């Protein structure tokens, strides 16, 4: 299904508008009652050649520029990365339920973060992001190796099952350490449930390069992904090495996911919900699926975060709770549909 250029432009513009609207809402809404007019004027004040008095105090400006803005931008990066990675996983595995989390990224990252908090003590907090990153990569590596050793004809199914086994194993070890060190329970859970809170722009700058590189590599393979979604034999007949492409795309998608997860904690279901919703709207062609997933994923997460910080204000709700509450029912719908298709 190839969209006409005009329709394609229309759909992409629509998605971009939704993302911009979501970001604007994210900047305007928060527990600190900054007036929308003040916020908009303050943003205008930062533009070149514009000098207006927004009426915001320096403290309110700090809230806007050092806390709310980086949080919205981090939401964009995390949402975009999770959605694009999910689309790539589903493409290479031809499995509608595949996403990085199913292959063990989340469990591996959770184990890594737990070990950093438990072993490192007070100093361990700085070590959480890198430890989560390493744990996530190791877990997917293990999944992949296991899947290959036992994999036969249907290796893309076997690898998902291997992911389940690796995840269960990592969860068991994580629970063991949490039981040994019950004083760290709240810290570990707080990270696991996901949180977009950032300390200024540092997290954004750390995550940005990974997201850019990962999205670029996946985008370059959009046509290959189209071919692979038909079948390995068909792809091979067109000169594509399915196993090689799968390894490359799974690696970069996992790298990007592990990077964002290390900053945001485990935010689930974005990688499954968003690409499927987009497919329902515009069909399975990756030329449109990938950019749309990116924008819709980013908008979804920014809006989820708006909910997370408003529902119980001034208290926060973990964002993973919001995405799972929306995502889990959707997951079941996808499951039903996919049974009919296969």
């Amino acid at each position, binding site marked *: 299904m190839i969209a006409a250029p005009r329709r394609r432009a229309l759909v992409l513009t629509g998605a971009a508008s939704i993302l911009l609207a979501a970001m604007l809402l994210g900047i305007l809404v*928060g*527990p*600190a*009652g900054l007036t929308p007019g003040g916020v908009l004027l303050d943003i205008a004040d930062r533009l070149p050649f514009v000098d207006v008095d927004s009426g915001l105090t*320096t*403290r*309110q400006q*700090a*809230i806007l*520029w*050092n*806390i*709310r803005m*980086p949080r919205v931008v981090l939401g964009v990066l995390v949402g975009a990365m999770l959605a694009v990675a999910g689309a790539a996983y589903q493409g290479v595995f031809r499995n509608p339920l595949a996403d990085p989390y199913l292959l063990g990224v989340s469990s591996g990252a959770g184990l890594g973060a737990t070990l950093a908090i438990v072993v490192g*003590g*007070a*100093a361990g*907090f700085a070590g959480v992001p890198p430890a989560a990153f390493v744990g996530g990569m190791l877990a997917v590596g293990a999944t992949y190796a296991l899947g290959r050793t036992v994999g036969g004809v249907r290796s893309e199914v076997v690898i998902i099952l291997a992911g389940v086994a690796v995840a269960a194993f990592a969860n068991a070890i994580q629970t063991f350490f949490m*039981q040994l060190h*019950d*004083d*760290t329970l*709240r*810290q570990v859970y*707080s*990270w696991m449930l996901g*949180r977009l*809170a*950032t*300390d*200024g*722009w540092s997290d954004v700058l750390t995550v940005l390069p990974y997201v850019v590189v990962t999205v670029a590599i996946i985008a370059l393979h959009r046509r290959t992904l189209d071919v692979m979604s038909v079948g390995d034999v068909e792809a091979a007949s067109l000169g594509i090495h399915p196993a090689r492409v799968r390894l490359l795309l799974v690696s970069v998608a996992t790298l990007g996911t592990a990077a964002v997860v290390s900053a945001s904690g485990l935010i689930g279901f974005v990688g499954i919900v968003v690409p499927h919703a987009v497919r329902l709207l515009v069909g399975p062609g990756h030329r449109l699926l990938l950019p749309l997933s990116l924008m819709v994923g980013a908008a979804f997460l920014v809006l989820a975060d708006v909910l997370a*910080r408003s529902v*119980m*204000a*001034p*208290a*926060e709700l*973990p964002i993973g709770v919001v995405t799972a509450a929306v995502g889990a029912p959707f997951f079941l719908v996808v499951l039903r549909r996919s049974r009919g298709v296969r």
Partner: protein
Amino acid sequence: MPVNDSRRWLAAGLTVFALLAAGCSSSDDSSPAGETDTAAADVPQAIVSLSPTSTEMLYAIGAGDQVVAVDDRSDYPTDAPVTDLSGYTPNVEAILGYEPDLVVANADTGDLVAGLEQAGVETLILPAAQTLDDTYTQLEQLGAATGHVGEAAELVAQMQADIEEILAGLPERETPLTYYQELDNTFYSVTDDTYIGEIHSMLGLTSIATGSNGYPQLSAEYVLEQNPDVIFLADGQCCGVTPEVVAQRAGWEELTAVREGRVYVLDEDIASRWGPRVVDLMREVAGIVGGIPVTAPTP
């Protein structure tokens, strides 16, 4: 501090319990404190404490000599017989290995009570106190169960007198000071509606955290907007947070408390174990509050 009715009722019930437990022996409450005969046949001689708070309470009421083992988290007083017993995931067999005749725990985790009952061991469950009155009640409860009724009553009276003295020394303020108490570096905090919130309220402080959940996770922007007069850090031990770390957080340098140097580290253990050392905590916080000028600007 008025004694409320429910507490009086509870104390009465406990006295009955103590009398029954003592097998209607002639328990003489009028004996002078400190002279309680702990060698009496019906008083527990081998107590296992499975929570740091109850350990502190047992020693404070003079039952320390009867304690044979305390859990791995108990670290005060330092001469308590620390073991690797877990109060969080208690193991009945491991507890029975110390041949206790009384086990004190803060929750009936994993059917602890039923398991110990099978072996004929009494269990006293003292859940985390919700108010200062709960602390007094629990001290009296422990006194009744261990044969130290007089000392427990004396300790409670002493605590009440100390607290009254601390409160009397506080300056008068027209509007209460606001505070943000940080429990960990993801900004979990406390409302007025918690034990620590009650303590702070008595000392003339109001939490910036509100809502039905006593321990909400706040967002950084909310803390900045509320601009608390004082910041208490109860996450120095867990998370390495210090006043310097707080000052370096993006945007936090704009806070009055940071600028005026009113960011204080509280001892996490004392500020989360609602036992006899709560008086120490109140004295410490009162010292901080008393040092803040009454004319402190509260924008």
